[in-house]
């Protein structure tokens, strides 16, 4: 147990400390000169790369149109590379054509920063597809999220939103690229391969042939983690010993998952000029995530129930689907961290987690704001803040305000639409697939656990997470089209609506905050926000949770 506590302190505490200087750096990279027209030396380079559209400062509508336009181009390029991979170079193992709905799903998935994978990397993808289509989107889709957050924060600071085409390059070249380079090089020395040779063929000591897939893995894995992408080079993701070879590669990858989402909160605070407020938000997020980590480690300490009747030791926790080299706490910690952020990579098979442990990642995806995906996590939290200050304002009978902006019916409607669309996609999707062969015929487990597989898949798609209860036979036309579409809608609705809210707020006159204003920097606000998140976010899904993981726990684990 002492090892588990040390491990959590090292990972979460260490990353929280590192996120402070990173947030400072991200503020410098994303928002140079704090709007005083003092661009850093890179801005002019980005303007000449981006061309004429980089010149003007954009209002929220122009910003959104540019963002969507860039995403259309991302989609088309990725789709084309995947569709023609069998004719393209860098394909030493001769990977064949992919099925149409799988291409749609995969492209949507990587454009939406989700990385839900209905294929297995080492089976289906050429090296060119992995790098130029998928890894490229792992960079730029994360950059889109970061750009959107920078624009949102500038708007709340009462400034112009900036220019999307400059922001997306700042995020790619100044934030993601240098970090990815450092992490990739460190991963190399833990034993993650980086080669363009095809699979190695071995003759084992017992004389059997074993084909060992490898490839340019280290470069891919670094940005997979840092960009809250999560799509693995190999099918089983970071459980694979060549994707995550040692205890220390696992530590490095876990840190990489949360460091930018944590840094985003500090960057937000710096841009709006309210670091105390950022500290309150950071604390709320840390508490919500910490609660699930504690739960997951506790629930996963129960031994594998299926072995209870056999002569098998019962003194260790559930090890099905886990790697020994990471240690006992690493699986549950990663499961929570990867779903707290919208990363979705795994270092243990979530389908084989104990029932209530499996509930923890689901709750993380339902809330989707602590710390959330790169950029978009903080944006999701902004939606909860809008609703939270509105409710608080109503309770004390004052005009609701946030940072001096009056929050009125229009803004709250937009925020609620954003939050409720999340529940709509998950619950309606799950309901349809649970009662039709689309879902029922694809299950790997029976009973409540089968239901959990469907619920998890839609939660993952709607949260732009990308992890799965991977037993689900999800490479079908129905699953590919349904989740592909949910991923795209769930990506852009929670980016467009918050920017629209900021557009609407900043059209008003900003009030000066007085002693009568509800503070956003104290414990009362933190409590109010936490309650809003739990009530709006989690309770929506409670009935579904009782049908899945809770029912399974009650049936078997007592």
């Amino acid at each position, binding site marked *: 147990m002492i090892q588990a506590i040390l491990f959590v302190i090292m990972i979460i505490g260490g990353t929280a400390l590192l996120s402070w200087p990173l947030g400072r750096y991200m503020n410098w990279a994303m928002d140079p000169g704090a709007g005083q027209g003092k661009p850093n030396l890179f801005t002019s380079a980005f303007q000449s790369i981006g061309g004429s559209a980089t010149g003007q400062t954009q209002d929220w509508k122009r910003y959104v149109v540019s963002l969507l336009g860039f995403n259309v181009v991302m989609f088309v390029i990725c789709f084309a590379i995947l569709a023609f991979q069998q004719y393209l170079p860098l394909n030493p193992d001769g990977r064949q054509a992919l099925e149409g709905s799988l291409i749609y799903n995969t492209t949507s998935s990587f454009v939406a920063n989700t990385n839900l994978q209905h294929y297995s990397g080492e089976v289906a993808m050429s090296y060119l597809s992995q790098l130029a289509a998928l890894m490229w989107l792992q960079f730029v889709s994360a950059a889109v999220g970061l750009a959107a957050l920078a624009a949102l924060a500038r708007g709340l600071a009462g400034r112009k939103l900036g220019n999307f085409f400059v922001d997306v390059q700042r995020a790619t070249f100044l934030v993601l690229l240098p970090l990815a380079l450092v992490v990739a090089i460190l991963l190399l020395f833990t034993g993650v391969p980086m080669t363009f040779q095809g699979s190695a063929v071995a003759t084992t000591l017992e004389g059997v042939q074993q084909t060992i897939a490898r490839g340019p893995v280290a470069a891919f894995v670094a940005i997979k983690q840092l960009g809250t992408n999560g799509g693995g080079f190999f099918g089983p993701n970071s459980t694979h010993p060549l994707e995550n070879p040692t205890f220390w590669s696992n530590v490095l990858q876990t840190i990489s998952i949360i460091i930018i989402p944590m840094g985003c909160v500090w960057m937000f605070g710096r841009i709006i000029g309210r670091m105390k407020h950022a500290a309150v938000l950071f604390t709320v997020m840390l508490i919500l995530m910490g609660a699930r980590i504690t739960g997951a480690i506790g629930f996963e300490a129960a031994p594998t129930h299926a072995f209870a009747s056999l002569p098998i030791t019962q003194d260790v926790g559930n090890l*099905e689907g886990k790697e020994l080299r990471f240690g006992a706490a690493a699986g549950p910690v990663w499961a929570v961290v990867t779903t707290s952020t919208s990363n979705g990579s795994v270092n243990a098979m979530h389908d*084989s987690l104990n029932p209530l442990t499996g509930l923890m990642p689901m709750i993380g995806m339902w809330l989707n704001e602590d710390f959330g995906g790169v950029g978009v996590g903080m944006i999701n939290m902004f939606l909860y803040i809008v609703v939270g200050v509105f409710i608080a304002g109503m309770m004390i009978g004052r005009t609701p305000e946030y940072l001096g902006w009056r929050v009125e019916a229009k803004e709250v409607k937009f925020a609620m639409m954003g939050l409720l669309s999340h529940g709509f996609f998950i619950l309606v999707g799950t309901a349809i697939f649970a009662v039709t062969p689309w879902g029922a015929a694809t299950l790997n487990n029976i009973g409540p656990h089968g239901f959990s597989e469907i619920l998890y898949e839609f939660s993952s798609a709607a949260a732009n997470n990308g992890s799965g209860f991977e037993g689900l036979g999800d490479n079908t036309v129905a699953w590919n089209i349904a989740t592909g579409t949910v991923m795209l809608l769930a990506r852009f609705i929670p980016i467009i609506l918050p920017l629209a809210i900021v557009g609407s707020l900043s059209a008003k006159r900003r009030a000066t905050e007085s002693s009568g204003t509800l503070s956003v920097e104290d414990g009362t606000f933190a409590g109010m926000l936490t309650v809003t998140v739990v009530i709006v976010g989690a309770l929506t899904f409670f009935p579904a949770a009782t049908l899945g993981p809770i029912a399974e726990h009650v049936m078997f684990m007592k």
Partner: protein
Amino acid sequence: METLLSSLRISVATMVICVGGYTGVVWAIGQTAAPDLADGSLITAPDGKVIGSRQVAQAFTQPQYFWPRPSAVDYKADAAGGSNKSPTSKDLTDRATETVAAYGATPENPLPAELAAASGAGLDPHITERAARYQAERIAQARNVPVDQVNQLIDTNAFAPGAAFTTDRLVNVLALNLALDNNPAR
């Protein structure tokens, strides 16, 4: 139109720098500073044939070798995966029953749980030190050597993967089996 043009220009720039440049730099560093690791940690026999990867489990079924953890994909390192079964699943009980029979485990001498549970990728190269000791007797008999000798090999190969952060010492199954084969006293 302007949006499209800028999007295309930025796509090309990010593609060149983040896919071409970044991948190339990482590849070059890997191939010069740690070529063995970058190529997948392959182990070759004296005759140059590849035996396997140090990091990837391979199947061992003969009694004179240490056996790895079960694999849901039969140790296929080109199509890895886990069982994805719920820990409450009867399928797992059935699979574990076979494993228990293969080891001849009894209630007096129960099988360490890690030898019954399949790993996430089905390629976990390690077993715990206690899981290795559990197999020492069988190996000593099959090789006709004293069990102390096998245990000594386990001692020299066991390591703590995460220093103070982990409880169990592990051994690499392939490395241990190679050491068994190279043991002059066999």
